[in-house]
């Protein structure tokens, strides 16, 4: 084989601590290497042309590039060698940037390590074979997990493009957190007025199948061909029949059920429809509070239901859907402020969270849109808002900024003044983060036009005095301790990852960070892709986000799906396991260990059974390769011979 080696300087990224010229000249002494050089930026257009020129001039049959991580530029160089007529798998990359130059300053040691890595890459390349991908059909149906505003946007965009969409929502209604909000910043437009029509669209589009009160049970398959099992949770109401008339809720004698939608501020009935605009507008029974389901004699709802929709015997059921791509839009949860002992740890009824205040402000909320204190129902006169509760606080394990609280506090303070013109609002803040279009102007308006008092400092503690709360904080600009007597304290609780985010990530085989937010493929250039092909992200499941950004990501993910679905077929990855039937001893161990179920029995003539890999299902993990006793199953492009060649060079 005739091999060419190209050592990249990467400006000073590599050349700064690696003698690239020496690496190239050393490479010339390796077996089969006929050409070696170093270049300023190998990934640049002229850099790639240099490779292509050398392939033609020197009759190269394989190319090694020693540069950055293959995750960065392997596709670039594979395309480059392919253009020059080589098979894209006759290319190897030695990572001498992330693995060498960036992590050590010892020039001599770095150069030596770079030479070793190049030697290993050359040794492997000598055992490489051309590989060819095949084509397989794409199932042009989309699964959207999560029915918040990001998921709704993604589903509607794709449905508008003519695709079939399956939407799965854990709660019994779609709309997510946005459905609970009263108004939205910075325009103060009504949240349900702008979200409502989109929710209705989801229910009315014929090519959107909505599974509410459902969760993902399992996911198998791969890009273009996923099989998804969905658990439809028992709602004890036949939704086919339910008309959403609300008679059952009216008559239900269990009147102290938890009111999740109103964040615990009111009480719900055991059978209810969470809010008037709910989509789907269907009743469901909260089994925890239902008298009948807890062994008591009741069944009132079943008696009054005009369409006999109530079914106490209902069980969870599993449905299976075939899709080609998945958009994950599972949203976020809000920090539980009971971690803050100094703020009462949730014991004071008049110290509430931001989302609770949102329900109080809302006309469909527990107090009908009149601002009252939860403790005694009085109108508050002095309201204190405290920012960064569960944000930018390493002591409660939330060192990141939630990004939305500064804005929603300003909005709530403005709305408070609109509702109660005689009231005073105070905001304790550390910094004001308002980097959006018209955002900072909005915060200025809260201060200048609405007279909201902003105090720069954190709050040390809150304690009761009479029927009011004393908020003791600091004004760091003055360097004094300050105290505000308040009737109501609103804590701007921060954003955290959605409950169960980790379990879902494992089902989807996508990665998540230490706080449970899903990892995008590249923080800047691939913001809605994951590292699992065919799985995309939208909204706050990827990190704290406001509504405009969530909607933008929903549309972005939808456009990624549309570009995927623009093709009828996709190319398979040929780096999969392959069985040598001559040496296979039919022990079946590979079938047992394969985590993807990608290996099955194949019957040859005469009834002999041999293992067979389904190349479209195989993910190329190599477990079978490591397990196979006679080494009959080999992972292409990482065969035993290729890996041993590398190890031999390293140990030589």
């Amino acid at each position, binding site marked *: 084989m005739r091999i060419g080696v190209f050592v990249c300087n990467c400006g000073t990224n590599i050349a700064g601590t690696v003698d690239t010229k020496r690496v190239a000249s050393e490479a010339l002494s390796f077996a089969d290497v006929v050409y070696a050089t170093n270049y300023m930026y190998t990934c640049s257009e002229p850099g790639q042309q240099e490779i292509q020129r050398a392939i033609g001039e020197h009759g190269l049959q394989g190319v090694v590039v020693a540069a950055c991580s293959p995750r960065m530029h392997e596709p670039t160089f594979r395309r480059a060698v392919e253009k020059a007529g080589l098979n894209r798998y006759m290319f190897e990359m030695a990572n001498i940037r992330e693995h060498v130059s960036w992590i050590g300053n010892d020039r001599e040691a770095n150069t030596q390590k770079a030479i070793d890595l190049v030697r290993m890459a050359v040794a492997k390349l000598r055992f490489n074979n051309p590989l060819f991908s095949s084509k397989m059909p794409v199932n042009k149906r989309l699964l959207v997990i999560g029915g918040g505003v990001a998921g709704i946007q993604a589903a509607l965009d794709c449905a508008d493009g003519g695709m079939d969409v399956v939407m799965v929502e854990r709660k019994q209604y779609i709309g997510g957190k946005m459905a609970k909000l009263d108004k939205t910043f910075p325009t103060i437009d009504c949240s349900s007025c702008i979200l409502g029509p989109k929710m209705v669209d989801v229910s009315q589009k014929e090519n959107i199948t909505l599974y509410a009160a459902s969760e993902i049970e399992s996911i198998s398959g791969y890009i273009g061909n996923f099989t998804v099992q969905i658990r439809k949770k028992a709602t004890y109401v036949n939704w086919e029949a339910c008309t959403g008339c609300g008679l059952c809720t009216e008559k239900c004698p269990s009147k102290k059920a938890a009111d999740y939608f109103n964040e615990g501020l009111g009480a719900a009935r055991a059978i209810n429809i969470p809010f008037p605009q709910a989509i789907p507008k269907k009743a469901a029974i909260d089994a925890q509070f239902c008298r009948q389901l807890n062994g008591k004699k009741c069944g009132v709802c079943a008696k009054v239901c005009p369409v006999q929709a109530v079914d106490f015997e209902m069980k969870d059921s599993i449905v299976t859907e075939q899709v080609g791509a998945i958009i994950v839009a599972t949203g976020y949860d809000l920090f539980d402020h009971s971690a803050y002992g100094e703020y009462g740890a949730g014991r004071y009824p008049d110290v509430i969270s931001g989302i609770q205040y949102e329900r109080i402000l809302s006309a469909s909320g527990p107090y009908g849109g009149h601002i009252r204190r939860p403790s005694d129902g009085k109108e508050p006169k002095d309201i204190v808002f405290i920012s960064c509760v569960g944000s930018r606080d390493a002591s409660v394990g939330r060192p990141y900024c939630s990004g939305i609280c500064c804005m929603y506090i300003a909005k709530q303070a403005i709305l408070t003044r609109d509702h109660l013109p005689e009231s005073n609002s105070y905001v304790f803040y550390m910094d004001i983060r308002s980097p959006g279009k018209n955002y900072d102007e909005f915060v200025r308006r809260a201060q200048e036009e609405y007279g909201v008092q902003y105090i720069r400092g954190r*709050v040390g503690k809150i304690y009761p005095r009479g029927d009011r709360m004393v908020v003791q904080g600091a004004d760091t600009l003055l360097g004094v301790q300050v105290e505000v007597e308040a009737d109501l304290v609103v804590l701007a609780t921060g954003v955290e990852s959605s409950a169960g985010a980790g379990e879902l990530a494992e089902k989807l085989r996508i990665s998540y960070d230490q706080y449970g937010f899903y990892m995008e493929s590249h923080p800047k250039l691939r913001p809605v892709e994951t590292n699992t092909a065919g799985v995309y992200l939208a909204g706050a499941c990827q990190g704290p986000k406001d509504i405009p950004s969530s909607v933008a990501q929903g549309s972005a993910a939808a456009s990624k799906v549309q570009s995927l679905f623009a093709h009828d077929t996709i190319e398979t990855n040929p780096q999969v396991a392959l069985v040598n039937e001559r040496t296979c001893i039919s022990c079946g161990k590979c079938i047992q260990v394969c985590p993807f179920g990608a290996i099955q029995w194949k019957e040859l003539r005469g009834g002999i059974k041999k293992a067979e890999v389904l190349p479209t299902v195989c993910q190329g993990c190599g477990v079978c390769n490591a397990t196979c006793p006679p080494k009959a199953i080999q992972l292409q492009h990482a065969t035993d011979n290729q890996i041993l060649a590398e190890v031999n060079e390293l140990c030589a």
Partner: protein
Amino acid sequence: MERTNTLSIQQSRDNDFIREVEEASGQTVSKCYQCGNCMASCVYTFAYDYPVTQIMRLTQLGQRDTVLGSSSIWLCANCQACTTRCPQNIDVAQVMETLRVMSRKANTVSQRDIRVFYDEFLRSVKTFGRVFETGLLPVYNLRTKRPFTDFDLAPRLMWKGKLSFLPARIKKRKKIAQIFEVIKRDRFSKDGKARPEPLSSQTDI
């Protein structure tokens, strides 16, 4: 720090001071993002010349003289409210303690009375092996030129058995005095640097 209109950030910054505070306290002062929670939680903010948030800020800026000469570090009661509430997990009370030690070493204690109390307290321990309040308090009062302060409390305390006429008897009081000698010797033997094993060979207190 004298109230000046302009503080020269470069010229007034004492990097050694920042390093010394960090090494002695085990805390990273640059972690402080000036939220003010320590100041908000501190019961003595009203009495401090610089609230604790500003002590942290002055330390970040390397203002050695201002910090070590402040009254705040001596008025601090070490109640640890600042440490408990700090969102950045800084042990602020430990920083304050470190600053007190540095201030005493540098002989820049701004509160003479407090320094006298510490000195007399330790002298009492050295002399008697344990604090002798009936001796300590009059001496402290005399040295701080207010001889009759709290004098009226003495009979009631004696009646309750909280004060006694004679110092308590403890065993091996000379060994306690030795601790002071050893520390003093170590302190001044090599450029004020403490030796690693000060007591182990000779103590059986």
